[in-house]
Structures are given as C-alpha cells and as structure tokens.
C-alpha cells in the first residue's frame, strides 16, 4: 500500500510535496527528456520579468564547501515569450507550474500577475522579492516589512491564483516577514532564497564571481534554512514551502517536520537531475516504516518536549 503524499498549499493541491526550485530547473522543459514533470508536485520556473534580461557576465557560479554561489542575474526570456513559447509545452507535459515573478516596481509585479492570471496552465505565483543578485527591485521589497506587505497586497488584489512570496534569509528576523506576508493576504510563503555571500581568489585578489557577491545554496545552508522554517512555523498559520540544501528524502522530511507543507529542491537537481523518483521512494519508505498514511500530517510535528524540559532544569 502506498501512502498519500498529496499536500495542499491553500487552494493548490499538489500530488506530492516536491517542487523543482525556481532558478534551478530552467523553464522545466529542459528536463522533460529526463524527468516526468507530471510526477512532481510542482515546477517553479526561472524568475520572470516583464521583459527579456541578459543577466550577469560569467563567471556566474563558484563552488564552496558543500555548496555553491551563484550570481546569474535573472537572465530570462520575459513573461510574454514564456506564455507563448514555454507554457503550452508545460501544459502538454501536465506540469503544475509555479511561476516565479520579479519586478522593479509594484506595478510590474501587478502587471506580471495580471498576464499570468489570464494565461492557461499556471498553478500559482511565487513572488521573487528575495533575489540577492540584482540591484534594482526584488530584494528591496523583501528586505522591508512595508515593502513585502505592499507588493503582496497589490498582487493579491489582481489575481485569484495562490500568491506565494519567496522570502530572503538576509534579514534579522525572517518570521516577521512571514507575518507581513500573511497579513497582506498571501496564500503561503516559500523560504529560503539564497544567502548573500562571496568568494575571493587570493592569488589574484579578485572576486570569483563577476557580480562580486552571489547567493549561497546547497547542503551548506540546510541547517540554517531548517531553523528559519521552524521559526516561521511558530509565527504564522500560512502554508510554508521550505527549501535550502535539500538533497535526500531525509532532508525533505526534516523540513516537513520543522513546519513546511511542501519543499523545493534546487541545487541538488544540478548534481543529480534524476533524483526525483529516488526522493519519492524515500518518502514512501519513511511513511511505511512509521506507519503513516498521509504525509500532510507530518508538517510541524517536531517534538521539543524533552528539550523544553532540559532548558527549564538547566
């Protein structure tokens, strides 16, 4: 007997909690030969602006211990070409598409949301207010509570699609941003985007990325991301899509138990693009071993009773 891996993010029903992370899966179609996109809970496509963007010059990535830095700079085809060229193929592949949108002004987010609400085959909108690699827009909303509230509520007014702001970890208290998103009418939050970081070639004293700084992802960030999901779970009732360094089924479960309702997998997909069936099998195995029937019941089940006791007695 297989267990029920389906989860809900507001009105969005996912067949399982695994979503390919934005920026790590192209527009999804790149992987259609290797991965059955319909077998994923969702596909978060590369962040889209209204217009095409070239992004940063190379080098755009550099490896760091158990992780990588990237400063791609949101190269992309723009929303119009996405709707015309990619969305029909994604529909044919029966992918549940989470479209990641990015603007430099609130009006641009609103315009993107309008366009995508009229398009066929979009499951939800992820608001990219957290990309560390572009100077204008995006993270300027994500690093301000009023900015986060303003962009979420503006998009909320123009779409019936689930609205999911993607939060940055590059703030003092990420939970307060989850609360701001909740108050503004978000259907869920996703977290965390990458950690602002840098690497230097000491021989040349030059930065290893053309953008000087970039975003750190991969297993190196996972414990911090788990902690942030846990903090947000204490702060809001909203569904949470957790991410940060997930590479195995055990990693997925860690995020669910910490409080996530679903997860995104990004950097690990670069290392092993065929990891999805292995993750699903690992989740099924866990459910069987623990006699669980519905994975949705795992969310936020962290047992801290002993730890609280230890703290009180210390």
């Amino acid at each position: 007997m297989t267990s029920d891996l389906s989860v809900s993010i507001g009105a969005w029903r996912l067949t399982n909690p695994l979503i390919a992370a934005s920026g790590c899966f192209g527009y999804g179609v790149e992987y259609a030969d290797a991965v059955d996109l319909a077998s994923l809970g969702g596909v978060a496509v590369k962040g889209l602006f209204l217009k095409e963007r070239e992004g940063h010059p190379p080098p755009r990535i550099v490896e760091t211990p158990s992780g990588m830095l990237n400063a791609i700079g949101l190269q992309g085809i723009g929303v119009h070409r996405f709707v015309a060229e990619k969305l029909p193929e994604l529909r044919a592949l029966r992918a549940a598409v989470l479209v990641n949108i990015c603007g430099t002004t609130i009006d641009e987010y609103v315009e993107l949301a309008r366009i995508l609400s009229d398009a066929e085959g979009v499951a939800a909108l992820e608001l990219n207010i957290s990309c560390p690699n572009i100077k204008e827009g995006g993270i300027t909303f994500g690093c301000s509570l009023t900015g986060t509230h303003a962009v979420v509520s503006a998009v909320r007014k123009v779409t019936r699609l689930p609205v999911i702001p993607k939060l940055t970890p590059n703030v003092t208290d990420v939970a307060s941003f989850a609360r701001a998103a909740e108050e503004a009418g978000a259907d869920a939050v996703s977290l965390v985007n990458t950690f602002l970081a840098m690497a230097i070639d000491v021989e040349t004293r030059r930065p290893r990325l053309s953008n000087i700084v970039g975003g750190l992802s991969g297993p190196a960030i996972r414990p911090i991301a788990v902690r942030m999901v846990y903090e947000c779970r204490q702060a809001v009732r909203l569904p949470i899509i957790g991410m940060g360094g997930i590479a195995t089924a055990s990693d997925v479960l860690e995020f669910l138990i910490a409080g996530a309702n679903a997860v995104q997998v990004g950097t690990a997909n670069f290392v092993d693009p065929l990891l999805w069936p292995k993750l699903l099998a690992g989740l099924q195995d866990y459910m069987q071993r623990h006699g669980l029937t519905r994975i949705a019941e795992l969310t936020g089940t962290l047992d801290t009773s002993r730890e609280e006791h230890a703290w009180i007695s210390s």
Partner: protein
Amino acid sequence: MPLDVNAVVLENRRLSDAYSVLLLDAPAIAAAVQPGQFVMLKPSHGTDPLLRRPFSVFEVLRNADGAPSGISILNKKAGVGTSLLYDVERGATIACLGPLGRPFEAVRPPSEAWMVAGGVGLAPFVTLATRLQQLGTPATLFYGARTASELYYVDLFERLGVHTVLATEDGTRGTTGRVTAPLGEALQASGDDASIRLYVCGPTPMMRAVARLAAEHERACDVSLEQVMGCGMGGCYSCVVLTRDQPSAAPHFVRSCVDGPVFDSRRIVWEVLSH
C-alpha cells in the same frame, strides 16, 4: 535522453603527473554518444566538491565483438575535481551523466576536415576522427602542446587515417611555437576551390586566433568551448557564452551546455570570452 550511470572505473592511465585517461564502464552512454558530446562526472561521492564537471567523451571503448562498452575521458589536473579524478583508482564508481550537448557535424567528402587541438583540447577529436574515417572524409589534425611528452595519442589519430601536423612551444617535436603558425601556412596554401571545415578545441587564446584565421580565409569553423558548468542540462544558466546571431545583431548570452559546446566560431563574441 541523457542517462545517469554509476560507472565503474576500468582503468586510470596516468600519462604524466597532470594528465590521465579515465576508462569508464558505461555501455549505454557509449552507444549513444555523438562526436564532440560530453558527460558530467561527479568527482566525489559526498557534497564537497558538490557539482559535477563536464568532460568531452574522448574514446568510445568497444568489447571483443566491437560493441560499445564504455567511454574514456582525457583529464588534466587543474583544480579540486580534476585532481580527485586523476587520483581515482580502478574499481571505484563515478556518477556519469550523458551524453549531453550539441555534437560536431562531420563534413563529408570531397570536403576536408581540419581539426585544431591545443593541450587537453584534444579530447573531443577522437570521436570526430572516427566519424570522419567512416565517412571517408580527408582529415588533418593540427595539434600543439608545450613539449613533446605532452603530445598524446598521435598514433591513435594516425591509425584513424588522420594526417597530423604537430607543434611544441619548446620545439621538442614538430614545428617550434604555436600550432596556429603551421595552420596559417596551410590555410594560405589551400586552393580557393577546396572546401575545408575547421574544428577547434583548446585554450581560449588559441581558439580566438584560429577563429580569426578561419574568418580571414573564409573557412567554416566550429569551436568546442569549455565553460564552467553547473548542471549540463540547461537548468542553471551558469555556462553562458556571449554570442551574436548576425554581425549587426545585439549580443546575447546562450548556454554552452545546450546551445553548445560546439558553436559556429562566427557567433562567438571573442573579445569577452575570458576562460
């Protein structure tokens, strides 16, 4: 469709203290690979280093019946990943994803194929030379290295019917200096009615120089670029190369893993290609 196999290392032939040829048991990939395609190899089983590295498929290995049984890659120690692969021993397993990328298109006779290789840039040309021999296309390899002991597998190309023109920077074998010198002379001497396509792989300055020679002599020229890659599948947008589809068009970044690694040299904006 790319395949991901946990390939057993059949042998790791150390050619020098920097170069090795790694033979991998990977029949399905060997059967599918086209000339100039690459694989993504994971140099560690853990998370450090985290990412796979791209390597051109060097040889397609065959069993006693002639069926494809595996591949080899030509590895040169340059960083952490290539050093780990240099040290790997027979019997170890390496995750190997491929074949990937846009292959070389081998010209047919009466056209001629001139391959131009610098150092480890020799890697994609065994598969191309094999295809050229099947097609009966006259083939020449212009091959340069620092010194005679770093000119590898010349006899293999000769067995594939390839005419070889060698150059070493220290003059220990072939012409003294860079391989672009004898190439330039050969282009100068070639007749206007001859149809020649150049295929190039090597250090960026060499490829840039060959692209310039090809343009001067109005010869078609395909370059195989080696960029830092994250995924090899088109997902990460890290391996981009600045290109122009028309001389007057605005340049834009394209992914070398899916639009390349083989490009028409005229598309490349050579001034900004840095590594």
